[in-house]
């Protein structure tokens, strides 16, 4: 018999809050965490807004030695995992049947930026001795494995803005296939450094005045940072140990556009959504909510709306993009957005698309503008469509 996979723990550090209850409350209230950035060389940036994690103090849960080894993104991941593991009621080393798959778009971007500012910019002749273990993209997964004794499969996937969904999809498949009984999974990114923003500026897709997905007045995406980590567990094992089930992961679909390095192709997105639904044995009509990739760029939003139309026809369920609130967390986006799906499934509250002002004739969707909505949600779909034409969609059902 095929194993079923449930979520028994969730944790997060993101611009809305440094825990899950705070994040869900902010999403339900439509709070926007985008604001002016503070960082060195701000005067040399043309984009000066973002969604930063405010007041982050890694030393609350981490010692000096640990902090010395961890990039900002890794700290977010470690704290998210601490929360998720505590909620799941897992204690001590989890052993050989436990693993971790995390996503990241950029790895230790802050470490890279700081190091090379010191070396090239400030003329220093050395960088911190732990620069390599801090910036390596698999650092977060390694720290989670060490801290929670995860001795089974452990690695990191990187597929730009779909990294989180690819990571969680693979973790789901591993638990379902029996390769592991429990997996920590999610993603982390922290790219709000001058170098990170400067790189994005060049593509001319960043907005200077907020993120308004699916709105005719949208001006592009707004960068954010953060992490979310979940405990994916064999349902029978979770029930046997009396764990509280937050939701069931029912299906995963991934496809490649194989067409353009930055422009999305609706066909690839539609095929990924269809694949997730087929994997979950759900008909399109059974889906009550779609958490969109919804970056707020003209290219994504039009393509995604078309793809949803291809899969769902006239009867598309409500669609919202929470990026208007927490910004685009790049590789970590799908992980924080899965929290919006959990809220919809568990609490019957669909997070809104904030910032929406005016209908775009190219987008015939109910985007839940500006105010959360109560609705019974039995099945939800979470979309992630990355640069490189890599698409990853997760289907979840109510526990």
């Amino acid at each position, binding site marked *: 018999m095929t194993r079923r996979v449930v979520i028994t723990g969730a944790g997060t550090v993101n611009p809305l809050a440094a825990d899950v209850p705070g994040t869900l409350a902010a999403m339900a209230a439509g709070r926007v965490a985008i604001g002016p950035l503070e960082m060195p060389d701000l005067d040399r940036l043309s984009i000066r807004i973002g969604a930063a994690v405010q007041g982050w103090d890694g030393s609350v849960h981490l010692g000096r030695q640990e902090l010395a080894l961890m990039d900002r993104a890794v700290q977010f991941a470690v704290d998210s995992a601490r929360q998720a593991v505590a909620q799941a009621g897992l204690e001590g080393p989890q052993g050989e049947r436990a693993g971790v798959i995390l996503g990241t778009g950029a790895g230790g971007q802050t470490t890279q930026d700081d190091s090379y500012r010191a070396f090239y910019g400030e003329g220093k002749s050395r960088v911190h001795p732990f620069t390599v273990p801090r910036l390596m993209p698999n650092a977060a997964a390694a720290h989670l494995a060490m801290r929670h004794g995860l001795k089974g499969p452990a690695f990191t996937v990187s597929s730009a803005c779909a990294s989180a969904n690819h990571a969680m999809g693979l973790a789901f498949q591993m638990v379902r296939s029996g390769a592991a009984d429990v997996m920590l999974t999610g993603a982390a990114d922290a790219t709000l450094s001058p170098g990170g923003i400067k790189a994005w500026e060049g593509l001319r*897709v960043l907005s200077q005045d907020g993120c308004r997905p699916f709105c005719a007045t949208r001006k592009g995406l707004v960068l954010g940072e953060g992490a979310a980590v979940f405990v994916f567990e064999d349902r029978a094992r979770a029930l046997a140990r009396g764990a509280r089930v937050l939701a069931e992961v029912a299906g995963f679909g991934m496809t490649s556009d194989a067409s353009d390095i*930055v422009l999305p192709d609706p066909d690839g997105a539609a095929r990924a959504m269809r694949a997730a639904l087929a994997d979950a044995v759900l008909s399109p009509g059974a889906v009550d909510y779609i958490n969109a990739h919804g970056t707020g760029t003209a*290219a994504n939003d039009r393509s995604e709306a078309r793809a949803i139309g291809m899969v769902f026809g006239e009867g598309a369920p409500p669609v919202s993009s929470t990026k208007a609130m927490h910004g685009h967390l790049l590789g970590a986006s799908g992980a924080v957005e899965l929290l919006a799906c959990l809220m919809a499934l568990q609490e019957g509250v669909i997070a809104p698309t904030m910032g929406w002002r005016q209908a775009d004739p190219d987008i015939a969707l109910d985007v839940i503008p500006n105010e959360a909505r109560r609705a019974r949600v039995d099945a939800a779909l979470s979309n992630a469509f990355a640069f490189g034409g890599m698409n990853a969609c997760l289907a979840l059902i109510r526990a």
Partner: protein
Amino acid sequence: MDGTRVNADDDLDQQVIAILAAQALRAPADLSRAMTLQDLGIDSLGLAEVIFAIEEGFDVSVPFNANAPGEGGLDLRTVGAVCDAVEALVRARQP
């Protein structure tokens, strides 16, 4: 991008055309003001490179957002329009 270095004594239009021609892998003489960037096969990524070359070459900042291409009166659709836009930006830069 080779062949896009800007010399102070070059005519501004010729400098802009050199940038566009290099991006389009064409000879500058083959370009005319009426040609669209689309005619030249310059797509959205190509335009990002063109803007980079213009900003580096002329020490200006081109206020272009791919999500709102026509915003702020900036027209970059044709070779002539790009030349005019750069001329305006260079003029605005000079006191």
